[in-house]
């Protein structure tokens, strides 16, 4: 470097001369698009780990519980068991992908402090929020599409109410992408995020009616199921796929809207104020 420095460094580094400090800020390409792209590039570089592994994991549940054991389990409300479990497994895969992607990308960026590169840029607070969240949205969507295609092909499950499924998917992606960002902002260690995934999201998913209808549970447990937010996610997806669930479509989507709105508001507050992001 030293030989070059003396000759042409300034010309190379400031090719157009000094920037006019009074010129308005103009983007040739939106910084938000760059941040979105960066987040998608990050998980696509790890596609075996971020896409294939979770799809394979959910597929195993469908094969083992649906195909291998499903013939020995009675239909649930007229729905073959192998088809009954598909909606819950799809929504679980989607929400886990969205959450884990964003919690890890934000925590890693905080931990290594390269998030400063974004926070010191001209990106607006809401652009940073959207940009960091988009990776989880896209990863969750790709995971869901792959599982949907495979689930339909393997079990023959249909999509009875595509609009409900579409709305529920969008709301789940928003809610858990934002939850992941929030967890990444609050986390002090990788253990914290593993704790949330293993001891909060996973148990709530399995207790949310993925493998059973809650009306078969004892009354007390049925009540407990109704305070589990993931129960409503599973119901919304089940209504979308097989056209029926344990609660009404309106209630399931209402809970999803409330969840997505609440988590989005929390996330917006964190980015707008810089709480925990900036000392």
């Amino acid at each position: 470097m030293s030989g070059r420095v003396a000759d042409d460094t300034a010309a190379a580094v400031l090719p157009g001369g000094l920037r006019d400090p009074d010129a308005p800020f103009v983007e040739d390409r939106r910084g938000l698009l760059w941040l979105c792209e960066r987040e998608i590039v990050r998980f696509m570089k790890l596609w075996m780990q971020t896409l294939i592994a979770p799809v394979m994991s959910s597929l195993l549940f469908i094969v083992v519980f649906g195909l291998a054991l499903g013939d020995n389990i009675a239909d649930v409300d007229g729905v073959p068991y192998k088809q009954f479990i598909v909606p819950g497994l799809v929504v679980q895969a989607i929400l886990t992908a969205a959450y884990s992607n964003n919690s890890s990308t934000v925590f890693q960026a905080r931990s290594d402090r390269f998030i400063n590169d974004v926070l010191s840029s001209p990106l607006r607070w809401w652009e940073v929020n959207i940009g960091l969240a988009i990776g989880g949205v896209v990863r969750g969507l790709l995971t869901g599409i792959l599982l949907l295609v495979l689930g339909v092909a393997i079990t023959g499950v249909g999509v009875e109410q595509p609009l409900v499924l579409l709305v529920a998917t969008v709301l789940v992606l928003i809610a858990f992408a934002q939850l992941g960002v929030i967890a990444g902002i609050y986390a002090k260690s990788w253990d914290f995020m593993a704790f949330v995934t293993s001891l909060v999201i996973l148990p709530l998913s399995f207790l949310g009616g993925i493998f059973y209808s809650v009306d078969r549970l004892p009354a007390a447990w049925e009540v407990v199921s109704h305070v589990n937010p993931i129960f409503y996610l599973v119901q919304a997806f089940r209504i979308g796929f097989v056209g029926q669930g344990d609660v009404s479509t309106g209630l399931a989507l209402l809970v999803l809207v409330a969840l997505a709105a609440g988590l989005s508001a929390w996330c917006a507050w964190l980015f707008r104020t810089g709480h925990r992001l900036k000392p």
Partner: protein
Amino acid sequence: MFDHASTSDSGSGIGSPAARQALSVRGFTKTYEGGFTAVDGLDLDVPDGAFFGLLGPNGAGKTTLIGAICNLVRPTAGEIEVFGHRHDAREARRLVGLAEQDINLDRFLSVQEVLIYHAGFFGMGRAHARRRAAELMDVFELASKAKVRPTALSGGMRRRLLFARAMMHEPRLLILDEPTAGVDVELRSELWEYTRRLHEAGTTIVLTTHYLEEAEALCEEIALIRGGRIIARDTADGLRAQYDADDIAGVYLKAMQGDAAAGNAVPA
């Protein structure tokens, strides 16, 4: 070169559009959660085109001040302007480049991508960003490592990449927070020469360093900071005369000891 009194009085910087200050800080205070006040009512002006050194012990408030300028620390009180723009305005942020003290490079991206995405966050178009990344990788001899991730680079190469990243969006104010900490003599010399050239091209440079000879060799003006306050500010010659010292190391020791003897406590 720059008189402390004349550049920090109320007639310059904030409130006076006629004077062109690259950086103008008024009454900046930062109290962290838990009550620790790192900086208390600091005033500072750095003229456009200056090469300005900020010296002080660990915990003096240098990095807190830099963090606030770069929108990474929330000020408790005070005003900070960059070329007349509020420091948190987009117009201000695109004018500032920061090479932080710690290596903070995106581990998921390659060297080339680190540069390109940084430029992108500042609104640069793809073709321009690619061209500029190629230029800077050439200048910093990183071209052969373009596809390599930062984690696979040597310490010196990572430091060069930090420099290159800070320059990607063509900042007019470049802040270097201990840029030569832990680098070998050869690279330090190269970085010195590089920053000199940038300054000659008109870039305003704010440098913090623990290497006093570095500040003396590079900076037109030096401020000493202790306990979150500027305790002295002048050219290297002016400081030596003021403190009757042979070199900046002597100035530094006398200034710090004098400030402590005057009863000015360092926040604990």
